[in-house]
């Protein structure tokens, strides 16, 4: 095959993949702003459904955001030091712990939720609060953060940097904050993107963990699909995008900003 044909084929595959991914989303978004789904775009566009969703599900939107931010905070504070310790220790024990942390991904969300309910069911106050859902989300997203940070840590000799800083007189905390953290930013941002989006979109676990007072956005979406007009459910999806996309952009921007700042100094 000539080079040009190869490029064309490659471009074609990419295009088909993009279409495959984007078309369903576009259709859904379109449905969310159509006056009448049956008539399609010709029936006219409206923001009415979006307004209805906002009025009815404002609580869920806010709760989902608070949940995701809390989950992210817990995961950053525990996952990053964990990855650092795993990278510095190495060996069979570290690999074992890494596998153990990743275990909740392999187990169906429903099973994980049942285990949590069996364990914490008796603690009624905790069981009923939104923090119970945070616990589930942390279990589920922690491995994404540790993996992402670990991958960056393993891409350079963090051990040597750490030893160099120690030889220059820096204690453990100072080394972690001043040498390790700035150099694993990329991993933390990648892990944070995963954690935040997974938390906002998580349904399996949350469906079992939630109470009528602690519904999240995806649980509400399931309700909407089950009981309301298709247009409303689609508007609901649109609401999702409106929440996630700015966060993704902000995180990417933050990553670039810290990078620039690091080198300018």
């Amino acid at each position, binding site marked *: 095959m000539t080079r040009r044909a190869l490029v064309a084929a490659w471009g074609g595959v990419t295009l088909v993949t993009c279409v495959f991914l984007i078309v369903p989303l576009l259709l859904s978004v379109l449905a969310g702003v159509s006056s009448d789904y049956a008539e399609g775009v010709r029936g006219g566009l409206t923001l009415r459904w979006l307004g209805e969703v906002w009025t009815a599900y404002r609580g869920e939107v806010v709760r989902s955001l608070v949940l995701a931010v809390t989950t992210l905070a817990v995961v950053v504070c525990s996952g990053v030091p964990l990855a650092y310790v795993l990278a510095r220790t190495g060996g069979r024990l570290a690999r074992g712990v890494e596998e153990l942390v990743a275990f909740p991904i392999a187990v169906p969300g429903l099973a994980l939720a049942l285990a949590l309910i069996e364990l914490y069911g008796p603690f009624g106050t905790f069981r009923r609060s939104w923090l119970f859902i945070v616990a589930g989300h942390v279990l589920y997203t922690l491995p994404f953060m540790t993996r992402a940070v670990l991958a960056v840590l393993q891409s350079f000799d963090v051990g040597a940097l750490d030893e*160099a800083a120690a030889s*220059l007189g820096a204690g453990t905390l100072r080394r972690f904050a001043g040498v390790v953290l700035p150099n694993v930013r990329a991993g933390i941002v990648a892990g944070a993107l995963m954690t935040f989006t997974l938390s906002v979109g998580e349904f399996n676990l949350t469906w079992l963990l939630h109470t009528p007072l602690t519904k999240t956005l995806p649980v509400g979406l399931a309700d909407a699909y089950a009981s309301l007009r298709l247009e409303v459910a689609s508007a609901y999806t649109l609401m999702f995008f409106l929440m996630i996309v700015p966060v993704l952009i902000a995180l990417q921007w933050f990553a670039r900003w810290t990078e620039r700042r690091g080198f300018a100094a």
Partner: protein
Amino acid sequence: MTGTRIRLTACGKRYADGTRALEPVDLEVASGETVVLLGPSGCGKTTTLRIIAGLLAPDAGGRVRFDDDDVTALPIERRNVGMVFQSYALFPDRSVARNVAYGLEVRRVPRVERDERVASLLRLMRIEHLAHRAIGTLSGGQRQRVALARALAPRPRVLLLDEPLAALDAKLRDTLRVEIDALLRSLGVTAVYVTHDQAEAMALGDRIVVMDAGRIAQVGTARDIYLRPANRFVAEFVGTANRLRGVVRDGTLAVAGGTIAVGGDDGDAEILFRPQDAEPVEPSAAQLRGRVVRAHFLGDRLRLIVEGIGDEPCVVETAGALAFAAGDEIGLRLHADRVLRALA
């Protein structure tokens, strides 16, 4: 910079799985002296350096002293050592100047004094023009200069260098080796330098510690270990050595290619000689005769691989002007006073 004397007593290291990285060793490095730890990988030289640094604790009974202070229990960050790594280990998120400033920031040196010190070290290493560059844009040689400046900035009691030139190409290695030598001498700092390269060791070390399988094989000046190696390992690791085995009768060793007067007791014996200590002579009049199987012209000298002298081919080096080719008969005369006999 004042030189600190380093003393190791009975410092050994055994890992949990039972492997012995280092047999208990005693070693003293005088104030201002440069000692090179030389040996193949796995000989214990890096373990020794890491015990001095405080990155590894010696097994029970081992003691590390800087002058009269027992620092055995101190972690590296409280020993005030400067370290230079093979991988440079520069902080990629900091500029050159801020890398050099790190140890001073940790010690809370006031800003003005810190800036002055950083500037003087950049000047010393001749990298002032790189002060604001990112580490990622530097060449290997520049990086190692930054690493040296960073290690020296807080005025460490001892400077520890772990194969600092191993990642550089040959020409740069030579240049930087000369510079490091001059630097260590002018600063008068006590330095321990780890390498597996004997040329580097001989050029830099006031004394060389040759290590083998977790033990110190010999300690001495470059001249000592080259001319009077303590055993076969040292003779073969430091430079090339040809080995001849045979039986001595009446003070003469008989080998495949002839006889050599070696003196001493009769019986089985082994001798070693350096490539440049065998002189090519007329085959008919020679004590040893062999055949050239390969001749490498190296410019300043000619390296010959000669068969038929002993069990293994011998390496002989001679003046580059001599013409020898594969297949030539060759006679050799060994300088009796340079032949090393009966090494373990």
